[in-house]
């Protein structure tokens, strides 16, 4: 155990003494504060059912707000390009491509009548293709659609997601395969598109498909007793380890794991926090992100008002930081450091190693409710 702790601290670049330094002091000592020039992108909401694609800087100053036709969810960033894809929160109909610098609309995705967008999108590494999770609601089938960014965002193909209710998806480090969190929830637009219709028979899974052929390469599920753990979000470390988090559809007082790690080809390994933290996660995780070191990952739990932090290498819980209605999280360029946003309008810089939380100072951030996911653009 001691060896593992040493390995962890070594990776973090920390010794015992330096861990006592305040976050600001560490930052001030840094010759190049890359983080200070970072820009964060997220969807957001106003007070009157008005929704936006928004950007703010590292101080929390809102740079622009671009109105959306309905509530957004996550954003896909086109590598080496200005494009940002925003697809509507499920059951979504709009998909818009924005200019990340100005917020101007550059293109639109046209959702087929028999499909609904599910809030998440990701680009291929070459930026050519955009992949979007969708619901084929007449057949209760998850779909990943493929859009050609170089051909006016033409829909050119769709693949089976190999599950029901696909949600977040990411490109694997090989750049050739996609990891998909199939939440297992069947919904239908005729029934509001969000109410689960199959709680008794849910079969969530994690699937990896070939991004060119759509062929299933790997798949894993939790044990049958945990079939109501909807696997909704994931993030992927550079070594291919997938961190994933769940939303439990059963009782509030059931004791359920909410976080897991998956190395494709093996079983999903769940990790739990100490009881008093696990309880405060309140059966619901909203977002998950690895840090810059790829060893620490954060999991937001807005219903409990906490962000939890976990050590992927040693399979253990690290700490938690309370953030009221906090959900969006993005890694900064520093190991163990994240920026988080909240539905009550605040933003924080959080240090998972030293358990520090510093509120972003600019008040303009507070005029919006920040949505589930947050993306960072280093500049």
């Amino acid at each position, binding site marked *: 155990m001691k060896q593992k702790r040493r390995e962890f601290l070594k990776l973090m670049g920390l010794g015992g003494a330096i861990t006592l330094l305040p976050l600001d002091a560490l930052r001030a000592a840094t010759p190049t504060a890359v983080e200070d020039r970072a820009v964060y992108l997220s969807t957001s909401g106003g007070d009157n059912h008005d929704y936006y694609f928004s950007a703010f800087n590292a101080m929390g100053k809102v740079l622009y707000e671009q109105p959306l036709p309905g509530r957004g969810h996550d954003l896909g960033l086109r590598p080496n390009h200005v494009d940002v894809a925003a697809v509507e929160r*499920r059951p979504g109909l709009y998909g818009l491509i924005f200019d990340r610098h100005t917020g101007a609309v550059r293109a639109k995705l046209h959702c087929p009548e028999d499909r609904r967008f599910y809030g998440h999108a990701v680009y291929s590494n070459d930026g050519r293709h955009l992949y979007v999770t969708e619901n084929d609601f007449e057949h209760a089938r998850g779909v990943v659609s493929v859009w050609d960014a170089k051909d006016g965002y033409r829909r050119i193909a769709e693949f089976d997601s190999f599950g029901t209710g696909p949600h977040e998806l990411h490109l694997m480090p090989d750049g050739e395969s996609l990891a998909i969190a199939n939440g297992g929830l069947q919904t239908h637009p005729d029934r509001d598109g969000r109410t689960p219709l199959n709680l008794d028979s849910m079969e969530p899974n994690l699937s990896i498909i070939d991004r060119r052929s759509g062929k299933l390469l790997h798949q894993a599920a939790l044990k049958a007793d945990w079939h109501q753990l909807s696997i909704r979000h994931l993030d992927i470390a550079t070594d291919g380890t997938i961190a994933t988090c769940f939303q439990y559809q059963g009782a509030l007082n059931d004791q359920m794991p909410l976080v897991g790690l998956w190395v494709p080809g093996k079983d999903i390994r769940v990790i739990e926090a100490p009881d008093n933290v696990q309880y405060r996660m309140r059966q619901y995780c*909203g977002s998950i992100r690895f840090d810059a070191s790829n060893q620490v990952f954060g999991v937001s739990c*807005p219903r409990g008002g906490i962000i939890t932090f976990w050590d992927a290498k040693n399979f253990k819980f690290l700490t938690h930081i309370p953030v009221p209605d906090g*959900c969006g999280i993005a890694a900064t360029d520093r190991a163990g450091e994240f920026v988080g946003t909240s*539905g009550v309008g605040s933003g924080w810089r959080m240090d998972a190693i030293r358990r520090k939380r510093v509120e972003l100072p600019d008040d303009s951030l507070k005029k919006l409710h920040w949505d589930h996911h947050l993306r960072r653009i280093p500049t």
Partner: protein
Amino acid sequence: MPILCRSCKATLLAASTMLAIGLAPPGARADIPDENYRPVLEHLLTVVVPPKLDALHDATTDLSAEMDDFCAAPDQDGLDQARKDFHTAMDIWQEIQPWRMGPLVANGRDQHIEYWPDKHGTAIRQFRKLMFNKPAIYTDREKIANTSAALQGLPAIEQVLFDDKLSAKLLGDDEDATFLCGYGMAIGANLERITGELTAEWPDFAKSMVEAGPDSMDYPDAKFAATDLYRALHEGLLIIATQKLARPMGDDAKDAKASRAESPTSKRSLRNIAHNLTGLFAIYDGKWGDTGEEGKGLAALIDSSLMDRSFRLNWQNVIDALGDLPPSIVELLDQPDGYQKLADFAGQISFINSLVENDVGGTTQLGGGFNSLDGD
């Protein structure tokens, strides 16, 4: 609770119905100052709860002592007294059970006190095995703490004291009787220890909540801390609706099964809910039995006297309805119209929960949240 005239009740019921269907709190309103939440925290966490935790500790201490006395010379009177002490301990535990926060949930403490819900019948399965093997660890007053949560708390001692076959054996003098007595005494001592820890740890937790503010890592402001109180009220009602009532009710009358209720062996599932409601109303009202003061709970944050009075009236209606029912779902379902009565009561719980979500949550500004209500 002041007595209301019949016409006042009718007016308030009509008002509450209007509030429930959407005329309640307007979307745009001034934020409640953070400092307004602090007196509520202070009152509930430092004035109201500690005496109740002491009462729980006292009740488990009495239960433990009675088990020791009974087992020294087992007879029916001793068994009756042990059962009475069990009920006293269970009554106060059920009042505390919904306050699921801090030391109550730390180290799985709530589950060690009462392993519930037990959807897969873990306790019964393990209990049968236990009686067959009679492992010594289960009669060890200290080591029992290291065993399965299902076998070391109130449901386990409930089996010992109330299961017809087992309690009959308790009065005998064979190997089963010796083991059951030793086991019952160990559980009693274990409960006394756990509730003692709970009592000891509560003040530090309460202090951290009351001192919420920018310097606190755990509670950045008082409103955030008070949200945990609102959640306890809301989730407590949800658990009654979805676990304590919906599970035994099943899909319809044919599917109903009283054994899926809480505390089926001691036949007190509805009595448990009555005590849950006492503890839950204290969160709203600020008064819990002879402890605390009316109007100093979440009600202190409600700026509408009509809403406050209608909520109290509707809550009282639930209490009155429950008062007309027997103490257990087993007995209720034995009545010809028992299922319908149970369904009606479940409907009343759902209604009061909708008032909590819409009126209390909205007016205190503690309910909901842009992300926490999202579901994605």
